């Protein structure tokens, strides 16, 4: 019996924390491998995000259901088996329905198994919470991950290829920025987004401090 009383209420924050406050990519810096590798276009980013979200939600459900049966000593191995099951499912489904997307992502679909966002959620959330709450939280995290990948994939596709989701934006005379579809472009765009978000956060803090100071003076 744990001393801390478990909080089973599902709040808006249960879902929203993965999207903004604890965004897996921009705040927790987890899952960098797919983030950098498959975001060369928006459609790849979306496919990767959807696949990861599915695995995340499904494995969270299963881990949460079995949380009282899994022995603590072998829990990581058990989580990996559960996650691998769903990754295999996604792998076959994608191969069956979208060969092009499957080819574009290559080994990174199988590598979802070792995505630390999923294992992290299983360990930090699903193994201590009831199924519904775990799933809501996992859905938020998955959506946050997908949005982050879209942020990167969108910029890289627009600059690197002049299109978004395959639709050309600038006509045929567009000059592609070759570096954006190279690995270096992934790092640069990620850094750009991080700078932007950090700056927004600092600005918000600065403003609230200014307001606080003004109140204090009165």
């Amino acid at each position, binding site marked *: 019996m744990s001393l801390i009383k478990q909080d089973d209420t599902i709040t808006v924050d249960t879902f929203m924390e993965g999207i903004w406050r604890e965004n897996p990519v921009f705040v927790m810096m987890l899952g960098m491998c797919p983030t950098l590798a498959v975001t060369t276009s928006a459609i790849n980013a979306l496919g990767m995000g959807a696949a990861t979200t599915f695995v995340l939600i499904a494995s969270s459900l299963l881990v949460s259901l079995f949380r009282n049966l899994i022995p603590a000593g072998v829990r990581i191995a058990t989580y990996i088996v559960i996650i691998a099951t769903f990754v295999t499912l996604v792998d076959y489904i994608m191969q069956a329905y979208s060969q092009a997307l499957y080819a574009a992502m290559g080994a990174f679909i199988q590598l979802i198994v070792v995505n630390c966002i999923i294992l992290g959620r299983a360990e930090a959330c699903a193994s201590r919470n009831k199924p519904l709450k775990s799933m809501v939280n996992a859905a938020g995290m998955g959506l946050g991950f997908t949005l982050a990948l879209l942020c990167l994939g969108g910029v890289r596709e627009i600059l690197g290829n*002049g299109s978004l989701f395959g639709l050309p934006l*600038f006509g045929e*005379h*567009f*000059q592609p*920025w*070759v*570096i*954006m579809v*190279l690995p*270096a472009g992934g790092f*640069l765009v990620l*850094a750009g987004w991080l*700078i932007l978000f950090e*700056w927004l956060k600092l600005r918000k803090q*600065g403003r609230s401090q200014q307001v606080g100071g003004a109140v204090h003076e009165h």
Partner: protein
Amino acid sequence: MSQKPIVLHTAPHVKKPQDVPMIMRNVVYALLPIVAFAVYQFGISVLLLTIVVVLSCLGTERFFNWMSDKPSSLNDWSSTITGLLLALTLPPGFPLWMGAVAAFAGVAIAKVVFGGIGYNVFNPALAGRAFVQAAFPVAITTWTPAFFSGRFTEFVPSTLTSPLMMPPETAEWVKQVAVDGFSGATPLGMMKFQSISTPTADLLLGTVAGSAGETSALLILLCGAYLIARKMMNWQIPAWIFVGVIITSGVLYLINPDKYADPMFMLFSGGLMLGAMFMASDMVGSPLTPKGVMIYGLLIGFLTVLIRQFGSLSEGIMYAILLGNAMTPLIDTWTQPRLFGAQPKKGKSA
């Protein structure tokens, strides 16, 4: 009658009137003749390109000053130098919008994120050029002839490309304006891909194709000499780079004179002079100790020849200097002088 108060100071009492803005201003003076010659040689395209690149550098720095709530750091002139140097390393007909991208990338990636002047690991101008080399590999290796007629009245067609668009083909236009059979290659390119050497006199005077400000080796040497005479540049850095180039290309030339270029050609062609004089000697990115400077210079010279002779690009000075910049902290650690009177570490001395 007011009397000046007597102020007591501790040493030092004699101060040199040298500070960062003053040295930087002198570097700008030293670069202006090179810019002027580039404009004379390639016409108004280069003039406009230089203005756009310098303004983009200043704008980028100001933008990040504003973002981080810091006072403007434009008055130390360092961004002006970055802009001038960057413009000098670009091809004369480089599209203006790509020049602006290079300036933004150079100042933002190589300078501002490291903390501004004095903290940059890499030379910002070269980092900017490396960015566009990776982003627009075709545009940055498209050369236009020097001294074409009408260069003061018309732009190179690719200069005024609208933003984000691909520059137009210049091959047809080059055929119309070229005085002699200009093949669209720099001396280094001709050497590498067609094994045609260029007379050293042409390389010294700058009557060849190439990036805007790299063509006249003699002028660059003179401008560098001005800074050296005013003790604002470490002359050992370019000197060791030249030694490195001569040794490496000399050995290769002795092995097989038909295949490898002679040391004279290597020394005076391409961007070696500009890079060695004004970019490798950047005070922030180069080592402090004399021994360190020697290693740094020899390494850059060696790498330059290596990339030129065996790499896929015809010019190697840019990557050589960037690699040298990356090695600088390590070189500085290796070559720290022993403190006077300090005991050598155990096991190292006899």
